[in-house]
């Protein structure tokens, strides 16, 4: 039997992605596995009396593995718990932007002519400025809570899905590779990359401090922010308070990108 490294990479990537999704489902259904009753505030993860971060330790319980951050919040359980907020926003934004982008892309293709050109013009305008700033501008109007962040990310992201939908609709290949399933297979890598990229954007937005409703929202960006106090401790050498949260979300983004990359390779290989 020949060993195929691509299958191994895809298998490992998928396993990691599923682990994150499993943690997200567990957060939503059974948060007590983290030793807390609620995931509404980061203060539920406060484990020490001192507000000064303590370094990672392999002794005295699994919650110390990543150390604690400002307020004595245990990092590892807080990071696991943060998937509830981050993935809810990510999946909702991903769903809305994909549906809206595909619907408008379909309309553009169906109508053709001037309407298609007009839609392309709108897309070009929306993608002229850095999409992060487009999202922040819309977030300002939508107000910075969970729904506002979903609206902002969806509005900033859907133009890309319009372009993708139109490109895939116009995609022509051999008869063997031209069905709807094949088009879906070509769209799947985009969805996977978007899962990672949008998770990253949620973290960036909350890292900026854009969440007025709850300053202790259980979210990775906020774990690295906490009213701007984290950066102060970071400059005093408490590296773990930023490195572990970044590592935690980068692993997810990395594996979604890797899986997307490999699926793209499989699809391209099959076409050739």
């Amino acid at each position, binding site marked *: 039997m020949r060993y195929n490294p691509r299958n191994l990479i895809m298998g490992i990537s998928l396993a990691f992605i599923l682990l994150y999704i499993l943690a997200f489902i567990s957060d939503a259904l059974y948060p007590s596995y983290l030793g807390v009753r609620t995931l509404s505030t980061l203060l539920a993860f406060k484990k020490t009396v001192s507000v000064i971060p303590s370094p990672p330790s392999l002794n005295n319980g699994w919650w110390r593995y990543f150390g604690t951050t400002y307020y004595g919040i245990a990092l590892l359980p807080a990071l696991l718990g943060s998937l509830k907020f981050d993935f809810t926003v990510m999946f909702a934004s991903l769903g809305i932007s994909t549906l809206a982008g595909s619907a408008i892309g379909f309309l553009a293709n169906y109508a053709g002519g001037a309407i298609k050109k007009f839609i392309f*013009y*709108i897309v*070009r*305008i*929306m*993608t*002229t*400025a*850095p*999409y*992060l*700033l487009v999202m*922040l*501008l*819309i*977030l*300002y*109007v939508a107000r910075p809570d969970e729904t506002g962040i979903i609206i902002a990310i969806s509005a900033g992201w859907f133009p*890309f899905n319009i372009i993708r939908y139109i490109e895939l609709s116009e995609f022509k290949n051999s008869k063997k590779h031209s069905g709807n399933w094949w088009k879906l297979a070509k769209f799947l*890598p*985009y969805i996977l*990359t*978007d899962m*990672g*990229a949008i998770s*990253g*954007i949620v*973290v*960036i937005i909350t*890292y*900026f*401090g*854009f969440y*007025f409703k709850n300053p202790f929202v259980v979210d990775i960006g906020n774990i*690295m922010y906490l009213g701007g106090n984290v*950066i102060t401790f*970071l*400059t*005093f*050498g*408490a*590296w773990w308070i*930023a*490195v572990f949260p*970044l590592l935690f*979300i*980068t692993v997810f*983004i990395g594996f979604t*990108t890797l899986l*997307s*990359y490999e699926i*793209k*390779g499989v699809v*391209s290989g099959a076409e050739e």
Partner: protein
Amino acid sequence: MRGAKVTDILLKYFLIFIGLTIFLFTVYKFVPIAVIKNDFPGNSIQVLGINRNIVFQYFYFLRSLLTGNMGYSNTLFYSGTVYSAVSITIPETLLFLGVTFAISYMVSYFIGIYSGTVFKTAKIVNMNIFPLLFLYLVSGLILLAVFSGILGWLPSHGILSSSSAALNGWVSSTGSSIYTTSPTNIIFIDSIIHGSSSIFLNFLKHMALPFFSLFIPTTVYLGVFISHEASIEYNKKYMRAGISRNAFMDSYTIYIKRGIRSRIFREMKSVFVIFMGGMVIVSYIFSYMNTGEFAIYSFLNYDYGIMGGIYSFFVLAIIVIIFDLFIDIINRGGRNEI
């Protein structure tokens, strides 16, 4: 856009510019008038023509955008007119943006061409560009933690240290971490004009971490892209045949560079937009005096920030439009298809 006339390209970007102002006006109309009034003390809000009909209001808004008459900003970053905030920060923004992007491009070009022709990386599929934005946050915070926090080699925030700035009359502080210098308001150039090596070195030390936070992800992404494109060109039949017959006299890389030029230019437009987003993130992490940082603080302050946010958004978008316009003009002969 093969063979497009310059006038067609200019018209295209003019329409994009008009569309951008309509987009900003639409968003601005969703903001409660009471909040906008906060940025216009007294009767100065009349500059926006709020009592006129919506079409006239757009033209009033457009005039305000073009003249910079966007009221006052009162944020943690800056207190004063929006125009002065942007005019203070824009020289340093352009310098930082230009230097970092140019060096990233040059290094990635060199690495990409070399690795593409030597290691022949054609089989590597290009990376998706979207996760690049998050990498700017990762590189920024990791570099801060290591080189400022653990090692203590480099400063963690600001564009200059207040102690060194206080010793020089040509440097003045106008707020938290905001410095103006004479005559050009670009610290790098003014320190050379005044012969101040201490300010010059201090500025470079403060610039180091923001620079590398942007440089590393951009160079890696562009390097992989150029390597991939160079390898594809290298493996084309005409190139293989030419190299085997020594028809290019050992200067085949010139032909590879010509072959991939239009594809690189096209990709650079996408990279530049995300690079701008990265600059906003990095300037926020390091409190590095910058229009992007001003934009974030403006959006964060709901009551006194909207006009600052809109104007800094507009200015940064204009930089992208000018960059895209420039690329399209010099890439007129390029083919869109790969």
